[in-house]
């Protein structure tokens, strides 16, 4: 019997390079079929003989309940892909992950927001989409509103909000997610300093209630304040899984080395 809430073994995700993301039409598909016999004869130029890229490869680690883990790495290291797989938005190509508990994902703020609906309506809409029950939203409604600071404009369609207000409202809803596991992806970068402070404090409170959290951030201070464990990713692989100070040191070393 173990008390791991997230167990990840050998997770990998492969993307096809040059994949025209969905904008294939029937004509294109037919052309593809007609071209195929000619490829062998090399009459038609082959775009790239190795058209795959592994965004994640052989990622394995485990989290216990109450762990707050930071994901650190350069751009394209695979941090967001890892969160997307755990949030079940995309499927892994190999490996597996076992998750105990409900997952709430803050991958980008404002999921489900519609500009024509009022602030109040969007709170309920976004909250339900993120996985909260209507009862849970009602219970926390006042807190969400005061956190976002848009009391006066609650009954105005959010298309009239400033982008900052929209972001605050979106984050306010997501911050009150009551799922056992939270995945947070780089959502604080657009916040101004004051709101950012509020968000970090709120996340810290959430962590203290024993929830399991995974955070992606480029801001070292966020990781240092919230997490006690960190994962360093580079080129889709886990470089290091250790305490925050050690991982941060390695990350900065690698950064410096890459820059020189």
């Amino acid at each position, binding site marked *: 019997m173990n008390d791991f809430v997230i167990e990840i073994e050998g997770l990998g995700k492969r993307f096809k390079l040059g994949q025209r993301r969905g904008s294939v039409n029937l004509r294109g598909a037919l052309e593809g079929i007609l071209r195929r016999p000619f490829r062998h004869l090399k009459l038609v130029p082959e775009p790239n003989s190795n058209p795959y890229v592994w965004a994640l490869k052989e990622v394995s680690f485990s989290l216990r309940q109450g762990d707050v883990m930071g994901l650190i790495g350069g751009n394209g290291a695979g941090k967001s892909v890892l969160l997307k797989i755990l949030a079940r938005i*995309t499927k892994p190509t190999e490996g597996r*992950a076992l998750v105990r508990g409900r997952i709430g*994902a803050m991958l980008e703020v404002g999921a489900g927001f519609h500009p024509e609906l009022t602030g109040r309506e969007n709170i309920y809409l976004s909250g339900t989409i993120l996985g909260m029950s209507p009862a849970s939203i009602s219970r926390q409604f006042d807190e969400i509103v005061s956190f976002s600071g848009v009391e006066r404009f609650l009954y105005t369609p959010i298309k009239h909000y400033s982008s900052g207000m929209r972001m605050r409202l979106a984050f306010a809803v997501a911050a009150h997610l009551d799922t056992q596991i939270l995945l947070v992806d780089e959502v604080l970068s657009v916040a101004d300093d004051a709101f950012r402070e509020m968000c970090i404090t709120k996340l810290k409170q959430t962590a203290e209630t024993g929830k399991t959290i995974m955070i992606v951030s480029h801001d070292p201070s966020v990781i240092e304040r919230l997490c006690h464990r960190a994962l360093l990713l580079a080129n889709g692989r886990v470089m290091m899984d250790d305490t925050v100070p050690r991982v941060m040191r390695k990350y900065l070393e690698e950064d410096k080395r890459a820059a020189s």
Partner: protein
Amino acid sequence: MQESKVLSQTLAVAFEQAPWPETLIQPARDGLSQYVRELRQYSSLIYLLLWRDIKLRYQQTLIGATWAILQPLFTMIIFNVLFGRLVKVPTGGQPYPVFALSALVPWTYFVHALTLSTKCLLQHHDLLTKVYFPRLILPLVAVLEAAVDFLIAFVLLLLMMLCYGVAPNWHLLMLPPLVLLLVITALGAGLWLAALNLKYRDVMNALPFMTQLLLFMTPVAYPSSLIPEAWRTVYALNPLAGVMEGFRWALLENAEVSGFSLAISILAGVALLVSGFFFFRSQEDYFADEV
């Protein structure tokens, strides 16, 4: 020693009975039972998205709810001029406007449901890439949303029947199962089209043209008795023929529906739904990557 063993065993049992759902994330498709369980879990999302779409539609438009009536109404008017007055299609003694409208109302629902369903995945591209929920909910909401318009148009139909003094008989009782058949067929076709449109974007462009063709191959503007005897079996293979004629039979007198075409409709509707469900499920894992 014994006590601690008992204690740890008790704790182990207690933990195993913890209500936290266990989810396995793996390359293979999720099991069917897990899928169905999640659909039930997310049922409140269905109502919420439905509410949102309906509110938005009727909030933004000037004419709002009347839009649901205008389309079948105007088509009926044009048909009345062409097929009722000029060509004089046999209607079994019924006034042509009622004759046409009784099939136009379910037809308009079908086309509307299909249109909404085909674009629902692309339309919710932001949700598909940011949040998890069973994707089947989106075409389901589309089909239910069109049903709201259908109900409004149905009221129009009843009013027209009243105006023309056409009284329904016990056949009306068959209307609910016919509506169910219509929704099942629309959902099945919608699931196919929604998934296909994500991969091949011109499905959406081909749709209006295809439904227009289908309209003329279905007994909406004219009765199927117009079709020569030799071709009638082939004609009945159109899954919508039975449903449309069934509607007419349920609402009006002197309307006939052949058992054969109705049977085809039922079989085709169920086959569309089942095959659509499995096809959609097979493509679902790649939606976020392809959208």
